[in-house]
Every structure is written in structure tokens, then in C-alpha cells.
């Protein structure tokens, strides 16, 4: 009976909506992650939301719900179509993944289906080779690819994800043809194929590559970002520094969003509180310990980022 009453109360709140926005949030909030439990996105989402229950943050805990499948498409389809837009259902986004997918088609969302709240992290793609590889710079890689068109094999996690975008950009910038090998099972499988020597090189996440280098298994030849990563890889030059015109389009930005139609008062409240929540010292400590680069951005900055990304990806993926 009590459950029934609670249910009724929630329905009433839902119906009357905005009047209650001032008290938001008054119950725990759910955050949908469209990748499996234990993956990088899931793991980081759990860290950055762990202080949500603090009084200076939202005052209510955030619970993670995983809806993995089809490279994130299952979760984002659900989020665009079925998620309640009452502020109690948040979603984690990955750029460029979901925008690239919406450009390729076959999904029920695009950039305008969601409202960004704040960005918490940015994990650039890097080019790696095995520790005994003869390649020591991107110039070596490009020279080999020029001499042996289509014969340089390199791995990355799947198609139309950050790794694939970086691969397309590098081939375009160097005007070479190489053989991209997509792997199933994310960055870990792509990393394994580089370490085991199944392929000559690979694109991987900066955080994972940093760990693999610490373990003495790979060399990192270049970062596909606008600037070097001073925190983890100050010695690795960017692609631009090595004469390849590759920008930060492949950087994997992660953050929080809500479905379109969420009341503006709630969006405002989240947009002011959530970036502050990300700045918590304990959060930063845990993220840094895990080798996950943080990059906090506000709602306005993310809106601009989404728009720019859609334009570049449109050009890049045209005719593929």
C-alpha cells in the first residue's frame, strides 16, 4: 500500500512538474551509461558521481544503470526515446561516438535529441607500436606506409569511434593508405594485438597507452590532440608537431546530459551544480590515480563543442 501511495505521489509530482523544480532533487537520481560495467566510461562515471549525495553537491546520490550494446547505440536509443525527461534520468555521453553514429544513420538520436549538462573528462587517442618496433616517430610510420601502400596494419576499437576517427584523420593528413583493423571488445583487444605483434601499430586511449608504456609493453609515437598531455605524457609530441594536420576531433569527451524536454529550471540547476561536483578534490584524486585525464567544461562550452564536432565529422565521414 505504501508503495502504491509513493507511486501516486511520484506521478503527481510528474504531472505538476515545474512547480517542484525548486525542491529538485528530492529523490535519488539515475545515470545511464551506454557501456558495460567496468569499462572506462562506467568506471569514470562512478568516480565523478560519488560525491553527488554531499550537501554542497546535489544532496541526493546518483545510481549508475548500464545499458550496453552495439557500441553505445542501445543505451542512447533508449535515452532519446524512452527516458523520462524529469531530471531524474541523466545519461553519460561519449563524443565523437554518438555524433559519428548519428551521421552514419540507423539510430534514433542526433545531437539535438539531448541537452548537455557538463563535461568531466577528455581521453585523447594516441598512436602506439610494440616496444620492439622499428618505428620511433610518426614520420617513420608515414614513410613505411608510403613505401608499402595498404600494408601497414594497425588496430583500434571498432568503427565510428574515436580510434577510427583518428585513423581516418591520420591517413588523410599523411595522404597514405594503411590497413585499419577494428577489434571487438573495445580498446583492450586492440591493445593486446599491438603488444602480441598481431599488427604493426594501433590507435588507443591515452590512459590505457600510458599504463601499457609504464609496464614496458609499448612505445607511444603521437597524441591526436591540440596540445601535449602535460600530466601523463609530457614527452610525447602531438600529430601537428610532427607535421600531420590532425586536430582534436577524435578526443573522447565524456560528460553528463539529459533528454530533450527536461524542464529548463532543472537543466539550470544541474548545469551550475554538476561542474562544481566534478571539481571535488576526492574525485580528482581518484581520477588521477586511475590515469584518467579530467577536463571539466560547462554546459555552454559543451554545446559549442557538440556543434563544432558535428561539422567536422560530417566532412570527414562524407562518402565513407
Amino acid at each position, binding site marked *: 500500500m505504501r508503495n502504491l501511495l509513493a507511486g501516486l505521489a511520484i506521478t503527481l509530482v510528474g504531472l505538476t512538474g515545474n512547480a517542484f523544480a525548486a525542491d529538485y532533487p528530492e529523490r535519488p537520481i539515475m545515470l545511464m551509461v551506454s557501456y558495460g*560495467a567496468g569499462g572506462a566510461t562506467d568506471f569514470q562515471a562512478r568516480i565523478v558521481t*560519488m560525491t553527488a549525495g554531499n550537501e554542497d553537491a546535489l544532496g541526493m546520490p546518483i545510481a549508475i544503470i548500464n545499458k550496453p550494446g552495439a557500441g553505445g547505440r542501445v543505451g542512447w536509443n533508449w535515452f532519446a526515446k524512452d527516458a523520462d525527461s524529469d531530471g531524474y534520468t541523466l545519461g553519460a555521453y561519449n563524443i565523437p561516438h554518438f555524433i559519428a553514429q548519428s551521421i552514419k544513420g540507423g539510430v534514433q538520436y542526433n545531437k539535438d535529441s539531448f541537452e548537455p549538462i557538463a563535461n568531466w573528462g577528455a581521453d585523447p587517442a594516441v598512436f602506439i607500436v610494440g616496444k620492439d618496433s622499428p618505428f620511433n616517430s610518426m614520420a617513420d610510420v608515414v614513410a613505411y606506409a608510403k613505401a608499402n601502400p595498404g600494408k601497414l596494419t594497425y588496430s583500434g576499437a571498432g568503427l565510428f569511434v574515436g580510434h577510427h576517427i583518428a585513423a581516418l584523420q591520420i591517413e588523410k593528413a599523411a595522404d597514405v593508405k594503411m590497413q585499419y583493423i577494428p577489434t571487438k571488445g573495445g580498446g583492450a583487444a586492440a591493445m593486446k594485438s599491438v603488444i602480441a605483434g598481431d599488427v604493426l601499430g594501433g590507435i588507443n586511449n591515452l590512459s590505457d597507452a600510458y599504463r601499457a608504456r609504464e609496464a614496458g609493453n609499448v612505445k607511444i609515437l603521437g597524441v591526436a590532440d591540440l596540445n601535449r598531455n602535460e600530466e601523463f605524457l609530457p614527452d610525447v609530441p602531438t600529430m601537428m608537431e610532427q607535421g600531420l594536420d590532425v586536430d582534436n576531433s577524435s578526443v573522447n569527451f565524456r560528460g553528463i546530459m539529459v533528454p530533450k524536454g527536461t524542464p529548463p529550471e532543472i537543466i539550470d540547476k544541474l548545469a551550475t551544480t554538476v561542474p562544481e561536483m566534478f571539481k571535488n578534490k576526492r574525485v580528482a584524486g581518484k581520477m588521477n590515480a586511475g590515469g584518467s585525464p579530467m577536463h571539466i567544461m560547462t554546459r555552454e562550452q559543451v554545446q559549442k563543442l557538440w556543434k563544432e564536432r558535428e561539422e567536422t565529422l560530417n566532412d570527414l565521414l562524407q562518402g565513407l
Partner: protein
Amino acid sequence: MEFLYYFGEVFTPVSMLLLVGGTVGGLILGATPGLSPTMAVALLIPFTFHLKPVHGLILLGAAYTSTVAGGAVSAILLKIPGAPANIATTLDGHEMAKRGQGAKALQLAFLSSLVGGVFGVLLLIFLTPLLAQWALAFGPSHLFWLAILGVTVIGSLDSGSVVKGLLSGCIGMWLATIGYDDMQGVQRFIFHDALGGGVNIIAALIGLFAIPQVLTMFAKGRHDDSIEAIKVQTHPIGEAIREVFKRSKALIIGTLSGSFIGLIPGVGGQIAGLVAYDQTKKFSSEKEKFGTGHSEGVIAAEAANNAMVGPSLVPLLTLSIPGSPTAAVLLGGLLIHGIFPGSDLFDNHPDVAWPFINSMLIGQILMCAFGIYVASFAAKIAQVPQSIMAAAVLGLAVFGSFSVQQSMGDVYVMMALGTMMYFLERYGFSAAPLVLGLILGPIAESNYIQGSLIAGATDGQFAYFFGGALNLLLIGVVVLSIGYSVFVEMRSRRALA
């Protein structure tokens, strides 16, 4: 022998409390349909935020070992394998439970889990550098042949005839093609929203194994209470220990094949139990008894799936590459405390690495002791009237498939596949080869595509797939396995004629 030095950390009060809690909790989670070891470990990660790294890992290690073993409980008593690792356990285990020997089956399962598990962890302790090389040796072409080897197992697994076994496997492989294809960037056979992410393996397992029995029980009507006539036999533990050692061949084959297959990244954990079961059957002098409630079947399957736990962590701990979904979750648990697996782990954090590994050793013993304690009264489940049982299993099946990823779509898939299996079973097809097809299909396909892309860019398809000692060895085993199945089929036909 460095690891002995760190046993002290395992026996502190906090560690022991977490170890016991993780083990008991893990057994319960593992016994719940739909809660796979991967999910159980993922659920525990947030708790480790507030613990010291070494304590967090002890909790996760204990939970991992005991959820794998806990899956045997629902596999044996309800015929619902908790995870792919427990599929082989259902084949003979549930037949034993139906005869009232549930207590015996559970005791055998936990004892062989203990033996297999301890062996696996000892391999991890002593042979890690060697094993890491073995794990890396498997490239796309080798994984492709390994998957094909798995397919040849299908023919002889739990089916009246080889042809029907292979056909079931084909259905499974077809089901596996549904969904979004990462390798080519296309959508295949998605005719309903629920199929967007493909057929979820856990939901499929629950449907294929549980629903046919539920339907059969309902079909018998509520007045058939024949099950109550079954006398649940109590089984002294001493006798179970003697039985395990009498069947030492099954125990050894299960343990060895489980630990070596479990090592191979991406493939091992899923098929170790089934391959071990099949090998034990082929080498057994009582082949015909398999599938009818033969204790060797339970022993081999459970020894194998726990033997896999230790070696499956080798690629993670040495190379920082998670070789299984559960290892990927454990990686998250390590990173959160600033510990990078790889050489760093053993060089700079031996005080975390070794207690973690040691706790898995102690965890095996706790798991076995607690499991056997539960076995005696859990087995009484066979006395529950069928009408109540059918409703309970149905409820668990819905709960289990929903909880995998909080999706009603998975419940529809579970019900649809289960209903299909009910009719297929009437015509002599069976669920185990179908599930094996579902698991192996994507492995064979993605590795074939990767291999052929690499081959196309380098020395050509033939040289890539047929060159090298490891390829030839695997192809040789495939030929032998097919030859053996044909031989057995021919002989049984002659015997009938």
C-alpha cells in the same frame, strides 16, 4: 616463495571479515540466475572506494571465485546456468538433482571447484611469466581455429545424434549474427528494438534452459505431484570426497583443460567448462552415462570453470590486458586505487598483489566449506511440488533476464527463445550445443574478419591461416575431433542395424 610472506595480511581481522563476507555474498549472488560473476564484481566496486586497496581487492577476489562456484547451485537445482561457465554443470547435475541426489551433486561440485580453483591459483602464482607468453601467442588466426574446434565439440555434446547437435549449433550461430556488427559497421536482422544490442547471452541462457522445463511442468497440470514421491537422499561428505578421488581422471582432465583454455584472452572463460566436459566424456570408459546424471560430468565441468579463475587473471596482472569481462571489471577496481597492473604491480605493490592472490586461495576453501554446508538443505528443493516450482522458476527467469541490463527487451528475448527451445527439445534438439553456437559464432566471425584483413595486407590468406606451428596444431586437433565424432556415429549406427 615471496607469496608466503604476505599470507599474514590475509589473516588480519578486517581481511578475514571481508573474505568471509565476499565469499558468502558471492555464493548467494552467483546462485541467483542472471547475476553473472562479472556483474557481481561490478556491483561490489563502489564499496571498495572506501576500503584500503588491499582490502578492496580481497573482497573482489573472494567474490569472483565464489560467484563462479555459486553458479553451480542454480545450474544443478533449477537447471538455470548462472553464467556460460556453468552450462556444462547443468547437463549431469540437474539430472542428479531430479533423482534426489542434489546434495551429492552440490558436494561434488564444490569439492571439484576447490581442487580446480586451488590448482588454477597455484598456476597463477608460480607460472605467470610463462603463461603470459602462452596467452599472447593466440592471434586472430589461432582464435579462429580454436572457435572451430569448439564447433566440432558441438556435435558430440548432449544430443542424441551428431547431426541434430550440429543443427542446434547452427541455430545458435545464426542467433549470434543478430545485432549491430562492430567489424563491418552494419546492422543485421534487427526486426525489433529489443534486438538492437544482439541476443544477450545471459538472457538467452536463462530462456533456453529454464523455460522449456517451466512449460513442461505446466503442461503436466497441477495435479501431478509425482515429484513429491522422490526421496531426497542425504549424502555424507566423506563419501563425496571418496567419490571425487575415485573419479580422479575426470578431475584431472577438467582441471587441466580448464586452466589452459581459461588463459586464452577473450575465449577461455566462456568455453572452458564445455570443452572440459566434452574431453572427459571422450576419454571416459562410461561415455553412455554422460547426460543421465553421471558424477564425472559434474566433477569435470566444475573443476574446469574454477580452474579457469586464476589463469584468466594472468594477462591482466602481467600485461594489463583484461582477458575476460570479469578481469576488465577487476582492472577498474585496481585503477581506482592507483594501482596499475603489469610489472608495476608486483614490483611496487607486492603488499597488495600477493594478499589479493593469497585471498583467492583461502577463498576457495571458505567457498567449499560454506557451499557444502548449504548443499544439505538446498537439495530439499527437489521436494517442492511441481506447480509451485514452475511458478518460482518462471519468476526467477524473468527477474534474472531483466536484471542483466534493466531491460524488458531481454525478457522478451528470453521468453521467445525459451518457447522455441521447448518445441525443439521435443524433436531431439538440445540447448547446450545451441548456446555453444551462440558463444562461438561471434568469436569465429570477428577473428576470421580480422585475420583476413591482416592477411590481405601482409602475406596472403593461405599463409596466414594455415602457416605456423600453432595453426597446424589446432587444425590437427580439429580434424581429430571431427574424425572421432564420425567414428562414434558410424559405430552406433552399425550397432543399431
